[in-house]
């Protein structure tokens, strides 16, 4: 792999990396024929971001021949290459990215003014492909706005605010902080802003929905969009489905996919588009011997949703699974090989959506012939986590 980024694009690349660092600790790099993909995911798999840079973004773009190359590395190491954004513009003339397969290193060389050359040899690990399953085009609600609008909206919320709720009607969008039902109502402060449809470049509401998602992870995208001046598009459906925020121009595309809270009881029924899943047995039926379910029921004291037998099935492209979090923390926990050690109340069984939790995102895995994968034909890649530890 041999790519060269010149001039102002070096700063754009650096900003993309910095915004990905707001999502997760690792940077997944995948040079493809049509674009260089830089991705990141958070530890609970409830937030995912991907930047695609078309070959035209580069002044030279050569990808490794042979089988597809994928790697991941600590994002902090890559951020160290582009540490000072302010000086990047002034001093860096070009950035050269080269792959050294033998030494498992990715070399970033910055050619700076005054004859200074900065070379960073970063070691990487091979990785599976990371790809969230989402489909922007089928979302009921689509909006597009200048970044200033969203930045100005978000500035009203404290940096520590975790979750924000966005509700839409035909002509309006409300943005307010999400206050947990368990929180002390007397100490809670609610801030709500109302945006009119004419403040947006595009405002198409298909369903009057209200979604709640994590704001923190989004801020990275806002910073990127503001600095590049690209409008932000927002796509969402019903609660439980992920919200997608994107920026795009002729040579790049950035997508931030965030899980949303599923708190609509009616939604539970419709949530699973798992046509092949058998109807769930009654709630307090622990006959299926699932210790996890029992622990979850004990912990959350919310009647657990229907349990399911059989291997969890992956969703269709659009839908998301519901998961059991601890009540206080809405982050999803996908039980995967890597995350085995997580707390008890976060065990797998994806097919039991209790009242309130974040829905996880699905991640593609490059395990094409996994026997644990569902029988459902899915056009894109399959669920990563849910299938890995199957107790049932």
């Amino acid at each position, binding site marked *: 792999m041999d790519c060269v980024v010149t001039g102002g694009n070096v700063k754009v690349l650096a900003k993309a990396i910095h915004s990905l660092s707001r999502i997760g600790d690792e940077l997944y790099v995948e040079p493809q024929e049509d674009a260089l993909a830089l991705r990141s995911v958070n530890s609970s798999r409830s937030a995912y971001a991907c930047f695609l840079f078309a070959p035209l973004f580069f002044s030279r773009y050569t990808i490794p021949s042979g089988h597809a190359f994928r790697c991941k*590395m*600590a994002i*902090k*190491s890559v951020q*160290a290459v582009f*540490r*000072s954004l302010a*000086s990047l513009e002034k*001093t860096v003339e070009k950035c050269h990215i080269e792959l050294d397969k033998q030494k498992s*290193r990715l070399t970033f060389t910055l050619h700076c003014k*005054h*004859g*200074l*050359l*900065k*070379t*960073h*040899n*970063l*070691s990487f690990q091979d990785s599976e492909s990371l790809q969230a399953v989402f489909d922007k085009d089928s979302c009921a609600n689509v909006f597009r706005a200048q970044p200033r609008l969203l930045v100005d909206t978000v500035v009203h919320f404290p940096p520590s605010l975790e979750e924000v709720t966005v509700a839409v009607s035909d002509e309006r969008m409300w943005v307010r902080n999400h206050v947990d039902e368990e929180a002390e109502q007397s100490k809670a402060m609610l801030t709500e802003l109302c945006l009119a449809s004419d403040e947006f470049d595009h405002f198409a509401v298909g369903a009057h929905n209200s979604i709640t998602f994590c704001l923190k992870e989004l801020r990275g995208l806002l910073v990127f969009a503001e600095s590049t001046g690209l409008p932000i598009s927002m796509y969402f459906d019903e609660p439980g489905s992920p919200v997608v925020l994107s920026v795009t121009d002729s040579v790049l595309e950035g997508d931030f996919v965030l899980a949303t809270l599923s708190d609509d009881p009616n939604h539970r029924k419709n949530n699973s588009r798992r046509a092949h899943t058998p109807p769930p047995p009654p709630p307090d039926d622990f006959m299926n011997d699932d210790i996890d379910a029992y622990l979850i029921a004990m912990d959350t004291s919310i009647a657990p949703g229907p349990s399911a037998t059989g291997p969890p099935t992956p969703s269709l492209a659009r839908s998301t699974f519901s998961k059991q979090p601890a009540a206080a923390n809405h982050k999803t926990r996908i039980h995967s090989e890597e995350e085995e050690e997580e707390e008890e109340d976060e065990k797998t069984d994806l097919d039991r959506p209790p009242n309130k939790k974040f829905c996880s995102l699905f991640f593609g895995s490059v395990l094409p012939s996994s026997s644990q994968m569902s029988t459902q034909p899915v056009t894109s890649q399959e669920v990563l986590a849910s299938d890995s530890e199957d107790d049932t």
Partner: protein
Amino acid sequence: MPLSTQSQADEEQYVFMASLDNARNLSNILKAITFKDHAIFSATPNGLKVTVEDSKCLQANAFIQADIFQEFTIREDLVGFQVNLTVLLDCLNIFGGSTVPGVSTALRMCYKGYGYPLTLFLEEGGVVTVCKINTQEPEEPIDFEFCSSNVTNKVILQSESLKEPFSELDMTSEVLQITMSPSQPYFRLSTFGNSGNAHYDYSKDSDMVELFKCTKTQTNRYKMSLLKPSTKALALSCKVSVRTDSRGFLSLQYLVRNDDGQICFVEYYCCPDEEVE
């Protein structure tokens, strides 16, 4: 504003006395070498030298020539004592270190000799503060035996070009490796950290390089923890000279301009961690 609070008799007792209209001309340069608490002060008729050492491997010296001071009196060839540098700096900044133009702290530093404290008279806006700092027996500064005739490689750079790389250095690297060579890569700073290694290469033709005299390819490693404090001196300076001798010892000399545009020097000597050829 000259201090007139001392009697003639007092002045004759002092073996060393120096005055500055602007104490910052001393405190700023001392900040560049404050990585350890204790400093050895050596005053000679040429001026004042302040030395700080670390684990017998690193030595930093700040030179303030006699003509920088408004008054500089010394009654012996060499007056030496050791004081707590942190305390001294706190005293020099006792008026809060304001940067209002025209307002500065005046300083008179007096020393009666062995066993006596270092007395500081500080005045700002008519208010006088007297500080007496205990002195200790001065240790002998290490002689790194770094002489010009033994210098194999020398590069003089504009500090501007080194400031950013130095501040960006990968701190997870235990060493800073410096390569100097008459051929590529000419002058290279390298780190070896957790995520990989990094190299900063300066071309000898760079307009930031004022002098390039390298006779032999040398690569030496120095402990990062020892060299990192030199970043302060670098930040204050406008030019830096990097020299290595045949043993791989490193000499960094920084040219610092004080508030009044006068030149002072700060110098760092460092032993190599290991020889890498």
